[in-house]
């Protein structure tokens, strides 16, 4: 096993959605920069959109929505806890990004006049733009990477960031998941775009890799940002999604809603006014599952044959193409049977909810020279288009940083400690198998952290996670591939501890099911109308603290504030 040292100007970690965009934009901002895109899998098919995407969930398109409307909608959907500046930066740049992607060859649905065919799924405004032919999006990105001459390296697993004596970023360390070679990459600026912490909860099937998020996104980015001293935010605002029971994709109301599909309970009644994924919507969904009117279904059997075949074409070729195969195995034909739904395992993902690394409106984290974008960067409900917009911002900010800063010195001790930590599981003769430690850890996550959250259960959970911390020193990897799984267990454990501590810190309930606390059932705006942050302090302890919410750019009227709390369809008395 060798140690390989490299030096670049901008290092982008994560080649999924935000990462390629960041790399392209850094290179476009200054073609002289050496930009390296480091990917754990293979950039051609990596990340959350490896098989494409069937639509934009948050397109802000002139004539259909304004940035102000969008900022208002997300502020209300996220129960007021947003830094509006970051959401506004997204909203104002969303349309230009759509136009650029369109020029690059991404296909969006248009009506007969050539206008974008925007649909309404949210509670208030219209932001959903279908992409029935969205399966090529990774190819489009790859072409741009080649055109701008971004350097790419695949199958490298980044494990820790390097920081200089003044705390600013100095690079990152990684290992090759096929050879176990250790890489030290010096960089002036780093972009973290490692996706969600998708392997946190265990799916109810018990299958480790049956997660909603691409399981390659194991929370490595959250862990790296934390250990580098970056501030994280809203970790207690979990990601929980309504999915097909036993399958890891949505049924999917976003795609089928505009065609006439809808969510029902077992009595065939609608119970939610709006299918947009918010914490409150998940709360209503959970109540229906638990309250005797479950299970919950997606109903399509009333639709015309041609409508159903269109839906099948979209849902069975895009984003989650094995969905059709799953339905066939269970004998589910949309024409005859409702699609049974259930709720997913928990995860951390700002693309869907709000948990992530704290960033400003230029994608800058609190660590100088470190930027973040995509699912792991805290810009609530940012989805794929948000990953592209913040990828662009992160790339441009990185290029600007490089113009003014030289390399930070590399601390040899940091490198040596990390090399020992990474290689240790290969060097042990006997030890614990990574998949067993992962299974146990994630089962504890379910047992102790799955909402509704209970204080005492979460406290015991923290003790269990401490127990797993000791087990990390006994992980045994038989080869470089298993070493990747072993190091992922480290990251998952960090995320589990963050999820528990952040949830204990916020002593109120907010965001519906995402942070429903049995012991503190009410929303408490007096004490908790603020961001709850988390970071590693100077003594290496995980600490929580409050950050005030910046004055809103778009005021929220008293009459609108609770719009997302009134999702349940009123039953006539």
């Amino acid at each position, binding site marked *: 096993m060798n140690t390989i040292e490299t030096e670049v100007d901008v290092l982008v970690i994560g080649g999924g959605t935000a990462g390629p965009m960041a790399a392209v934009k850094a290179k476009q901002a200054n073609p002289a920069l050496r930009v390296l895109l480091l990917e754990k899998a293979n950039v051609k*098919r990596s990340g959350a959109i490896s098989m494409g995407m069937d639509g934009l969930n948050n397109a802000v398109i002139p004539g259909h929505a304004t940035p102000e409307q969008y900022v208002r909608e997300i502020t209300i959907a996220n129960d007021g806890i947003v830094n509006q500046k970051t959401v506004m930066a997204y909203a104002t740049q969303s349309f230009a990004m759509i136009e650029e992607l369109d020029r690059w060859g991404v296909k969006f649905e248009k009506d007969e006049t050539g206008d974008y065919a925007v649909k309404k799924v949210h509670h208030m405004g219209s932001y959903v733009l279908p992409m029935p032919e969205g399966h090529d999006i990774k190819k489009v990105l790859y072409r741009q990477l080649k055109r701008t001459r971004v350097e790419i390296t695949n199958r490298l697993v980044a494990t820790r960031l390097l920081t200089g004596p003044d705390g600013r970023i100095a690079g990152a360390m990684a290992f090759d998941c096929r050879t176990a070679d250790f890489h030290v990459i010096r960089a002036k600026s780093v972009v973290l775009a490692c996706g969600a912490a998708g392997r946190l909860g265990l799916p109810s099937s018990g299958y480790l890799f049956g997660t909603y998020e691409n399981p390659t996104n194991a929370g490595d980015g959250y862990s790296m940002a934390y250990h580098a001293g970056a501030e994280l935010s809203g970790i207690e605002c979990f990601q929980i999604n309504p999915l097909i029971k036993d399958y890891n994709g949505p049924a999917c109301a976003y795609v089928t809603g505009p065609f006439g599909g809808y969510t029902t309970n077992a009595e065939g009644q609608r119970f939610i006014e709006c299918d947009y994924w918010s914490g409150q919507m998940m709360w209503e969904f959970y109540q229906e599952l638990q309250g005797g009117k479950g299970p919950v279904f997606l109903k399509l059997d009333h639709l015309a044959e041609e409508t159903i075949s269109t839906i099948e074409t979209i849902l069975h070729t895009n984003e989650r193409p094995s969905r059709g195969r799953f339905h066939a195995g269970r004998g589910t034909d949309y024409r005859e049977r409702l699609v049974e739904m259930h709720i997913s395992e928990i995860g951390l993902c700002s693309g869907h909810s709000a948990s992530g690394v704290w960033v400003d409106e230029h994608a800058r984290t609190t660590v100088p020279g470190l930027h973040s974008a995509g699912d792991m960067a805290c810009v609530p409900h940012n989805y794929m288009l948000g990953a592209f917009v913040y990828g662009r911002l992160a790339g441009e900010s990185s290029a600007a940083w490089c113009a003014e800063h030289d390399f930070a010195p590399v601390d040899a001790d940091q490198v040596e400690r990390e090399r020992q930590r990474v290689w240790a599981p290969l060097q042990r003769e006997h030890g614990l198998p990574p998949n067993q430690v992962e299974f146990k850890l994630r089962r504890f996550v379910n047992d102790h952290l799955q909402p509704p959250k209970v204080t005492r259960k979460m406290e015991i959970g923290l003790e269990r996670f401490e127990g797993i911390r000791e087990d990390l020193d006994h992980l045994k990897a038989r080869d470089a591939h298993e070493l990747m799984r072993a190091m992922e267990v480290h990251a998952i454990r960090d995320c589990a501890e963050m999820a528990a501590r952040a949830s204990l810190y916020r002593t109120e309930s907010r965001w519906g099911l995402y942070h429903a606390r049995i012991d503190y059932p009410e929303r408490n705006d007096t004490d908790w109308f603020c961001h709850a942050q988390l970071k590693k302090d100077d003594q290496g302890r995980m600490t929580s603290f409050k950050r005030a919410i910046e004055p809103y750019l778009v005021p929220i009227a008293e009459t609108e504030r609770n719009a997302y709390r009134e999702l349940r369809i009123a039953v006539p008395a």
Partner: protein
Amino acid sequence: MQYAPIAFTPHAVPVSVDADKCIAHKGCTVCVDVCPLDVLAIDLSKGTAYMKFDECWYCMPCEKDCPTGAVTVEIPYLLR
């Protein structure tokens, strides 16, 4: 002390490769390259691709991108 399990032999894995269609012996590694979890490998003695690690996300790039249609992804048994 015994460390290796003796009773655990996976017989059915989600990804199967048709040996007659697979052209790994000609240098093709497409399915191995595109897998996000890096679970496929080439069996050098047989010259075909196979599922080396049972960690499938059933996402299907391996099947879609295979130039000869040799790869089939099934939903893992636990989820079927």
